[in-house]
């Protein structure tokens, strides 16, 4: 059976060019980049070359990038790093963090932990499209606020938050602004200076790079406390020997991302809009997220009276890989916090389906999905006690 991957929001295949670029760094240039000998130097050069490329995709300077193991670690370093540093500096002040209710667990769980150890966190609600309210953000800022952490684009429903406005407010109030841009990089043009972003998390495996690599942008002058103590790499911010192949892969992925972003955006948006238009023809189907302010590759739906895990397994039976935010599919058996935050009832969140597109998807893929989906939805509805039509 032919298989169709529409779960690029979860992870992406590594680009062939990226693999090619990485290969020599396993067995040819294997020196430790921190070593003084020629083996070390050639690895070091590759790491620094990559640093430039990664900085470039968000219009940052190369000396503002810290390598990490991925988006989650970058979020942790940003939030804990600034919080611990601030606490030391400002004593009892600097205790208040503002975030949103729809953050990825990398941010959300970290914020919950910060609360446990004595910080105060405000979780801004979002509207039915998943957007925060700028006025509410501004009102939430107090003299104790030292950090705003709001995601660039949501990983479930694809909503793109008003980065420019948030950045402006953060700057006006002299508050550090961190954003989890893991889903946005490569799909939204990003300029950290224009947007007044101080800290930005990105991840390699969402942009056709290898898993287990990522970076945190740290604006020059912004000081963090490390959370990984060790030999003192990355200006003491993140020790552990460089993952040279990973860093090189991330660098190449960013380079390609920067070159291809315009084309990717047009191509993906076209496929996405085809998906949305045709899938919404299904009776009692709805689009989740914002109609316009959404990632070019994200289409998120809900269908009355059916459950998402069943739907995904049925799709899998037809070779289609997708995702859902239903309670049954989660480890905690709770509906996705994002879907509840946009005001869906648990039973509405139950029937959710996320399709996230990528470079390798074709028009034929979309046609196949919109061809088989209606029948699957109907089959499940025929089985459902909540569907009496």
């Amino acid at each position: 059976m032919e298989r169709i991957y529409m779960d690029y929001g979860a992870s992406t295949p590594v680009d062939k060019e990226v693999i090619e670029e990485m290969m020599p760094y396993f067995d040819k240039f294997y020196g430790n980049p921190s070593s003084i000998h020629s083996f070390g130097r050639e690895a070091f050069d590759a790491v620094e070359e990559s640093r430039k490329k990664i900085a470039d995709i968000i219009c940052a300077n190369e000396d503002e990038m810290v390598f990490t193991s991925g988006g989650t670690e970058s979020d942790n370093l940003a939030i804990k790093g600034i919080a611990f540093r601030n606490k030391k500096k400002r004593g009892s002040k600097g205790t208040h963090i503002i975030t949103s209710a729809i953050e990825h667990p990398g941010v959300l769980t970290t914020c919950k932990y910060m609360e446990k150890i004595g910080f105060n966190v405000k979780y801004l609600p979002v509207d039915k499209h998943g957007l925060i309210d700028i006025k509410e953000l501004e009102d939430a800022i107090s003299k104790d606020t030292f950090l705003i952490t709001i995601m660039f684009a949501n990983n479930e429903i694809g909503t793109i938050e008003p980065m420019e406005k948030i950045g402006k407010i953060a700057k006006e109030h002299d508050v550090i602004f961190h954003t989890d841009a893991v889903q946005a990089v490569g799909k939204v043009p990003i300029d950290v200076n224009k947007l007044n972003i101080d800290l930005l998390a990105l991840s390699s495996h969402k942009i056709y790079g290898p898993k287990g690599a990522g970076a945190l942008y740290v604006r020059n002058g912004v000081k963090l406390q490390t959370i990984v103590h060790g030999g003192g790499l990355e200006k003491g911010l993140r020790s552990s020997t460089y993952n040279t192949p990973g860093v090189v892969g991330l660098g190449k992925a960013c380079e390609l991302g920067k070159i291809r972003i315009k084309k990717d955006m047009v191509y993906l948006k076209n496929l996405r809009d085809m998906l949305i238009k045709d899938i919404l023809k299904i009776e009692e189907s709805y689009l989740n997220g914002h109609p316009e302010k959404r990632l070019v590759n994200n289409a998120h739906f809900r269908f009355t009276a059916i459950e998402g895990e069943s739907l995904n397994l049925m799709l899998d039976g037809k070779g289609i890989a997708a995702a859902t935010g239903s309670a049954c599919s989660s480890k905690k058996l709770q509906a996705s916090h994002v879907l509840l935050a946009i005001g869906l009832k648990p039973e509405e969140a139950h029937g959710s389906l996320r399709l996230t597109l990528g470079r390798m998807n074709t028009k034929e893929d979309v046609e196949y999905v919109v061809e088989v989906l209606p029948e699957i939805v109907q089959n499940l509805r025929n089985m459902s006690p909540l569907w009496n039509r």
Partner: protein
Amino acid sequence: MDEQYTEMVKDHFFNPRNVGEIKDADGVGTVGNPICGDVMTIYIKVKDEIIIDIKFKTFGCAAAIATSSILTGMAKGKMLDEALKITRDDVANELGGLPAIKLHCSNLAADALREAIKDYRKKNKR
């Protein structure tokens, strides 16, 4: 590690037995799963204390659908008192096991059947 669904679960999910409604059912039981939100309805036809027909409708995950399917097969042809003895473990075992996190789904099926039998007995008080 997460356990995967067994082949048996997948078989009952992709080819569920006894799906549907019984319009003139003798007993109907509906239960909602307070844990994940699944809902299941079981319809029974009873003759001389024997379940002569049984059907289900389920709004839920693959485990919920598969447990409904297997349960209806297990209960069909049984005396009511025997059917009442079917436990969640029986349901899960019959499917060759369920992932730990999905064990609550087997509760749902056994409970829905009990509700249907209760409904029948209430309506047919002698």
